Each structure stands twice: as C-alpha cells, then as structure tokens.
C-alpha cells in the first residue's frame, strides 16, 4: 500500500455562517484512513462546527466535503450513507432517556442497518463488554454515572460499525474522576486503528494518541502538525499563547 491513498475525509475551502457570524473560514483538512486527529482551540473557534459539518449536523455554506468517497450535498441518500459510516460522541452524551441501555444500542442497527433483534443485541452486548459495562444493559441512562453514560454513548456509536468516529468534547461534561475511564476507552479504540477526530482540551490524551494536532482559532485552522512538533515547537504565535494557557495549570 502506498502512503498517499485518497484521504477518507477531505474538506476543501469549507465556510459556514451563522447569520452574520462566520464560524468557518475556508477550512482545508485531509484525514487518512486510520489517522487520529486531535482538534484544539479556544471556545468559539469553530472546532465543533467543523466536525459537525463532517456528518452534516451542520450544513456548510461554501466549499466541498467528501467523506469516504461521497460528497455531502442536499442528497439525503448520501447524507444517510455517510452518517452510517461516521459515529459521533457528544459532550452531553445524548442517550435516549426513555430506552434502556440495550435498546439505546440496538435502535440504529435495527432501523438503519436492518439487523434482526437477536443480531443487534449480540452486537450491542459485544460493545458493552468492550466499554466494560455489560451488567448495566437493562438499566436506564439516568441510573448510570456520567462516565458510564458516555461509555454507553461510545458503544452506541460503535454498534453501527462506523469507519470514522467523531468526538465533540467527550469529557467536558464529566466530573474529573470519571474522565479517565472514558479516555481509556478512546485510547483503546485508537490502538485498534479507528479513524478518529477528537475535539478536546485533554492534552495528555492528545499526546498519547494523536497522529496530527490541529489548532483552530476564529474559524481557521491555524496550525496542523504531528504532536512532537506541535507541543515543542509550535510555529504560530496564537498556538504558543493557547498552549501556554492550557498547559500552565
């Protein structure tokens, strides 16, 4: 295999407006299959908006986004196909409170992948084992701790067997003692070769798993580099300032 395959995600000159406010300014990014990208930057810098454009929870206003060979346009069939291949984990977990953990996991595989109940439950239990909470399968989300809920949310995304996982500040809503159990699951996932884009402020995690660090500010990608260069010799002043603020405490 050659080094320069087609990237699995390609953003070309992507712009996004919220009314007058420009959240993304001609963003260009490529992600290879199996690559782990960690995106950081101050709040309001467009990190979340960017990854939410990749599965079209937000519509971009200009530029092109191609995911796994399919361009994101108005075409609903394409959008659904891309979303089935792209899992997403949210800051607020967004588990379905009226369903048990097991039903949270089986819903999408049954409706969108047309698995039978039995098949879907097998897959679900397999992923609950992987995030180490198979014994909670019949509880409701509200009966779990924050860390457990986020692990269920990760398992729920994995049940669709996605090729890409997006993480939108997955540990920001967690109590400090629960952050590690979630990060451990994500590190494990990275080791198995999952393509990941992670928006996070957990720099320790970033150093462990990232192939590429991306720094965003004011809707632009300011710097994109391997972690070894990024943390020791950032090129841009804005990156230096941000890193000094976030690493100093």
């Amino acid at each position, binding site marked *: 295999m050659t080094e320069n395959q087609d990237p699995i995600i390609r953003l070309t000159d992507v712009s996004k407006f919220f009314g007058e406010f420009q959240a993304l300014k001609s963003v260009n990014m490529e992600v290879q299959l199996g690559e782990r990208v960690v995106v950081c930057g101050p709040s309001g810098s467009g990190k979340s908006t960017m990854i939410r454009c990749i599965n079209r*929870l937000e519509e971009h206003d200009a530029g092109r986004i191609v995911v796994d060979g399919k361009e994101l346009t108005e075409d609903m069939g394409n959008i659904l196909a891309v979303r089935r291949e*792209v899992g997403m984990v*949210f800051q607020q977990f967004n588990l379905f409170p009226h369903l048990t953990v097991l039903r949270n996991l089986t*819903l999408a595989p049954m409706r969108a992948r047309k698995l039978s109940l039995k098949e879907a439950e097998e897959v679900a239990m397999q992923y609950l084992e992987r995030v180490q909470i198979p014994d909670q399968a019949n509880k409701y989300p509200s009966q779990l701790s924050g860390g457990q809920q986020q692990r269920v949310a990760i398992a729920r*995304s994995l049940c*669709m067997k996605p090729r890409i996982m997006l993480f939108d500040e997955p540990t920001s809503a967690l109590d400090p003692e629960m952050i590690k159990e979630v990060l451990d699951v994500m590190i494990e996932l990275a080791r198995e070769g999952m393509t990941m884009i992670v928006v996070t402020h957990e720099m320790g995690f970033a150093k462990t798993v990232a192939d590429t660090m991306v720094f965003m500010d004011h809707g632009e990608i300011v710097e994109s580099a391997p972690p070894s260069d990024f943390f020791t010799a950032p090129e841009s002043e804005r990156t230096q300032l941000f890193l000094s603020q976030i690493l100093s405490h």
Partner: protein
Amino acid sequence: MTAGRRNKKTRWSWIDLLVIAAVIAFVVFVVVRVETVLRYTWNWGHVMPFLAYVDEDTGRWVTNLLLEGLILTMRLAVIGIVISALIGVVMGLCRISNNLFLRMVARTYVELVRNTPPLVFIFIFYFFLSSQLMPLLGVDDLARSDSEFVQWMVRMVAGDPSLFSNFVAGLICLSLFEGAYITEIVRAGIQSIPRGQWEAGKSMGLSGFDVMRNVILPQAVSRIMPPLANQFIILIKDSSIVSLISIQELTFMAVEVGVSTSRVFEVWILTAVMYFVICYACVIVFNWLERRAERSKR
C-alpha cells in the same frame, strides 16, 4: 405533582380559618338574599321530571330533555376529543415540518382560531361554511341512507337521524376550534425535547421519520399528556357554545327548560352539577392514566 402535595403535612393556620369563615358567610348571605329579598320559592320537584319521569301508560322510566341533552353533550365530547386530537397531531406535525407550505397552513389555522372569539368562529363556520360543506360531504344523504348499518352508525353518533347534519356541523366546529389548541400542545411537546436527541439519532444514520417515531414522540407523549387532558376537559365545557347553533345538547336544553318552567335557579344548578360530574369524572380518569404511565416508565 400530586405525590409532592401528599408528602406535605397539612397544618391549619388562622388564615385558613378566616377564609373558610368568609366563604360560609358569603353562602349564608346569598341564601338569605334569595329567600328574603327575591322571595324565591324552591321547587325541585317541578324540575326533576325533565331529567326522567315514569310514563303513566307503560310504567317505565322515560328520559326527558335535560338527560337527553346530557347524553348529546357526552356524544359531542367523546367524538370531539377523538377528532380534535387527530387534527391536533396532524397539524402539530405540520407546524414543525420542514415543508414551508405545510408550516404556513398549520400556522394560519392556529392563528385564525386562536385570535377570534369562539362564538364568532362558530357563527362564521355555521352560517358561511356549514351550509356549503354539509351537502358537499353528503351528510344529509348519509342520514337518509337505506343501509341499516349506516342508520345504526348515525343513531350511535347523533342520536336522532333527523338532527344528524346539524350535529355534524356542531361537532366539526367544536373539533376545529379545540384542535387548534391541541396543535399548539403537540408542537410545544415535540419542541421541548432537546435538540441533542435529534442529533444523536441522526448521527447514527436514522431517517427523520425513524428519529421522530422512536426517539422524539415517545418522549414527547409523556410531556403532552397533562396539558392534553386539561384541553379535553376544556373541550367538554366549551361544547356548551354549540347550543347557539341549535345543537340540542345540555346547555341548549337547559335554556329551553329554564324558559318553559321559569325554575331558573334549579335548572341551572342542576345543569352545572351535571357538567361538573362528567368533567370531574374525566379528571379522575386522566389522573389515573397519568399515574399509571408514570409507574410503567420505571
């Protein structure tokens, strides 16, 4: 809601006693006024036969105007609840649709109804629309149909077949009127579900329909139920306004009996009691349903 109240200890303060004393004093005052100033002589015996009386020839009980009115009110209420709920769900979904045309239709409907007084709405509907609409729908033909099944249906729905088209007009009026409020209840219930629930469903490749059916609606239903039950009770009470377009329901009959007997106090107190009984019965049923739904959730 009720559980919280039950846990609280009941303690009497002097303010409670004062309020109770004031209420008793007021009731006594009104009774005394009626007795001494109006010199009103109560005659319940004259009014009660308008509920039901014993036919002297056959010796059997026969229902009379007031009870017949009550039965028609209950018919209006039950069928009205079903139709207005259907309108409310369909229009509520239109209100939040992505389709601009559907949104405009639903919005126009809701605003037209909400911003006109019920009486005006009903007069407009009755005089301008119903005279055109009823023949168009073939309602009169239906009532005159030869089919026994249709005749049976007509009697079940409206009681007297000769008043069928009138009844249908009143029913549609009432349902359209209440449906607008139910539309807003449905819309608010669905929109109260956090956006993250939509996003989580969509992010897994579920279609909009699947997210709505499996994620949003099940959660919205439990939020919609209490205000919906409230609206159903309002519907039962509002059914009295169709008396103005000569639907012979309870209020219409009460006016008739009140005028012909001039036992105004007795007739209206009796009527109020009948409305109260059916509404309060509904309150009890809805509360029970709500508690059961609450319990089955966990």
